[in-house]
């Protein structure tokens, strides 16, 4: 009985199934082989012309089948594939029977849609601003497909129907921390004993000309377009921004007790979650790193572990000048004297920044790191930033057995969420 409870007497939360799609490919096997092999998924953008744009590369996912190229369809298709893989690994078929927590990107109509409506509006001589004209068209003929494509609840609705989740699914966004927040919500629900299992999914298929330009205008993206695979270079002196990317990941969470009772294979434990908001600035972190430090400490305290018990850090490591500096400050403040013993690598050096999906994709990679006893490298580490004294597992993977991993996620809007994952119950 007690072995199913954590140090605070709460149900221990196990991971029994995982699935992943990224620019490296579909499925854990393919992704892990490439990630640990230091392969980059970043490539020139082909989805739309990049003439006139300062960034022309991304980690888009082009290989999933979608009926239409839009953010809703791409995000849903990747989420569906990741979830099918996760449920198969968990040995669950039929109705899932637990809640769904989905991290999904905020979605708007595509520009191709706007252009199409503008043409129709001209044909009926509609007046007013763009949307007043479009609405005149819609009053003559409804467009239920468009409607579904622009509702924020569409992806979770489809996933809920397909996989038979229970209750009202939660669709959430905590910007670049969203994937971690989805997992945290699942952990909380199990700890509340509201459910024995939860489906946590994070997906982002929102790369478009406009999304790219928006990040460009904030100077957030790397403009080192050639060669694409060298653009994402976290913790280096010449890092110049992140690389937009797409992907999805699903984790099946279960109370350890229920997983063991049904004979499921336990892939790892989500031992601790931390979160703390930052009130300093919309896009920048508090200069003292306070909220990020508090978030990491909260995750470790929640797991009942101290810095000496963390074997590896899966960094947020976006490759922006700001994030990597701040993250170093936060990690070094928390780990102190233990810092030299803790390797810290960034998956984003290979898969880019999958935004809404990043926290969950990196949680899957964190658990694969534990399972394989291999630390994935930080590639493109040719010119280390002397101000960042981290063991970033430069360029080549490293064999090392680790039993506990800290995974960081930080986002615009003062979002910070960290997870601690372990091999066995702490």
């Amino acid at each position: 009985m007690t072995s199913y409870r954590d140090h605070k007497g709460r149900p221990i939360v196990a991971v029994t199934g995982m699935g992943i799609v990224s620019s490296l490919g579909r499925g854990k096997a393919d992704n892990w082989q490439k990630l640990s092999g230091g392969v980059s998924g970043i490539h020139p953008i082909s989805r739309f012309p990049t003439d006139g744009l300062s960034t022309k590369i991304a980690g888009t996912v082009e290989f999933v089948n979608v009926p239409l190229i839009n953010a809703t369809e791409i995000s849903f298709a990747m989420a569906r594939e990741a979830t099918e893989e996760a449920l198969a690994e968990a040995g669950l078929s039929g109705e899932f029977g637990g809640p769904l927590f989905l991290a999904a990107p905020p979605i708007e109509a595509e520009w191709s849609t706007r252009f199409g409506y503008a043409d129709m509006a001209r044909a009926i001589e509609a007046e007013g601003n763009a949307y007043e004209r479009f609405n005149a068209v819609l009053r003559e003929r409804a467009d239920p497909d468009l409607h579904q494509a622009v509702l924020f609840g569409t992806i979770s609705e489809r996933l809920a129907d397909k996989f038979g989740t229970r209750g009202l699914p939660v669709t959430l966004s905590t910007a670049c921390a969203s994937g971690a927040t989805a997992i945290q919500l699942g952990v909380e629900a199990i700890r509340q004993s509201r459910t024995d299992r939860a489906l946590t999914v994070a997906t982002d298929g929102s790369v478009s000309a406009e999304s790219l330009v928006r990040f460009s205008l904030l100077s957030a993206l790397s403009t080192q377009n050639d060669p694409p695979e060298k653009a994402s270079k976290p913790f280096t002196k010449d890092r110049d921004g992140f690389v937009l990317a797409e992907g999805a990941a699903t984790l099946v969470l279960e109370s350890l007790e229920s997983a063991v009772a049904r004979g499921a294979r336990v892939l790892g434990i989500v031992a601790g979650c931390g979160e703390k908001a930052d009130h300093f600035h919309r896009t920048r972190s508090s200069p003292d790193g306070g909220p990020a430090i508090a978030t990491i400490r909260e995750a470790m305290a929640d797991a009942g572990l101290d810095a000496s018990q963390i074997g590896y850090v899966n960094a947020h490591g976006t490759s922006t000048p700001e994030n990597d500096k701040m993250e170093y400050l936060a990690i070094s403040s928390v780990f102190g004297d233990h810092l030299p013993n803790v390797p810290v690598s960034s998956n984003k050096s290979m898969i880019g920044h999958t935004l809404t999906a990043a926290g969950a994709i990196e949680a899957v990679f964190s658990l694969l790191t534990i399972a394989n006893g291999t630390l994935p490298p930080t590639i493109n580490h040719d010119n280390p930033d002397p101000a960042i004294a981290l063991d970033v597992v430069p360029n080549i993977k490293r064999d090392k057995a680790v039993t506990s991993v800290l995974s960081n996620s930080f986002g615009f809007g003062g979002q910070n969420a960290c997870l601690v994952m372990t091999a066995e119950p702490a």
Partner: protein
Amino acid sequence: MNTTPQRVVITGIGIVTSLGVGRSAHEALLAGTTSPKPVVDNARYAPYSVHPLPEIDWSAQIPKRGDQRQMDDWQRLGVFTAGLALEDAGLKDDAEATASMDMIVAAGGGERDLTVDTLIIDEAANHNDRERLLNEKLMTELRPTLFLAQLSNLMAGNISIVHKVTGSSRTFMGEEAAGISAVETAFARIRAGQSTHALVGGGHVAERPDMHFVFEGIQALAQGDWQPLAARSNQAGGGIVLGSAACFLVLESRERATARGATIYAEIEAVEGDRGSRDDEGLERRLQRMMDGAATPDLIVSGASGLVGITEREASVWRNSFPDAILRRYANVVGHALEAQFPIGLGLAALALKADGAIAPFEADDKALDKPIDTALVTTVGYVRGEGVARLSRVGGKA
């Protein structure tokens, strides 16, 4: 871990609707014996009517001009109303309380730049390479700050910046369901002892053709002059009149609220959401299941959107299941506020319970209240999907 469920109470209400700004303005309206006269603008977005934002002095809750400039009305409205809720709870300048306060915001997206979007489609009309034109225009015309004003999680981000609420920050999306899940999640966390106090709510701006575009995909908006809900099936369009409105609530464990001597508006007994097919009476079955075993509420505060069909089906469920309950459908007086709809219902119900059940009629055949009330049911049925109910009770009422 504390396994005794904590009781969850509402200790702060920030509310803004077309009828006014703040709790007391709404208390006064609820206390009346005649229906508040809806504030409607039927000209500016014709053929759609909207319930517009009231006159708001943003500086009262967002003192820095720089902060105001970083947002458009959607985020401003949320940040402003969140400030009202904190003030009402007596936690506005309590740095310790806000630093440990959880936050869940039910959000859509912020305003698009209608001028830029219109310029782009106009230039594209006679252009044979629209994608390249788009790149050029986006790079030159978009304001960098616009992205942040549009980002869903930046309503919460701005609440952190302006009001220093930093215990946690979560943004839920997905139309009405976002508001239901936000309250449900905050309630469950406090109940389980994972949290002691939380700010939860959302805001909606109706004066946005870019949002009308979303609703009109299924021709959901009513056309022509404003009509009460009961008359909308005889009117052109789909029945929804959007309202600019926001509501934020401070939820607190009763233990914490009592210890600090806070005013308690009402206790939340239960919150639940569900979804699924609405065909073959699926909607009716889910609403009834969520009320299974619950006693007849004295008051039902329904967030019915006005969408023709679903609105009547919801009302039938309550009239059949609880014929003795007083029903109030607040879209009649403030319109439909999407993500904010469910929080607004909780706010109105809590005010009514605090006032021993004072709640004015909202439409012609609303039964007058003839006795004090102890319990209220708050409902929201999403115009496309998702349903939620909350059960509230009066604190200090009959045992």
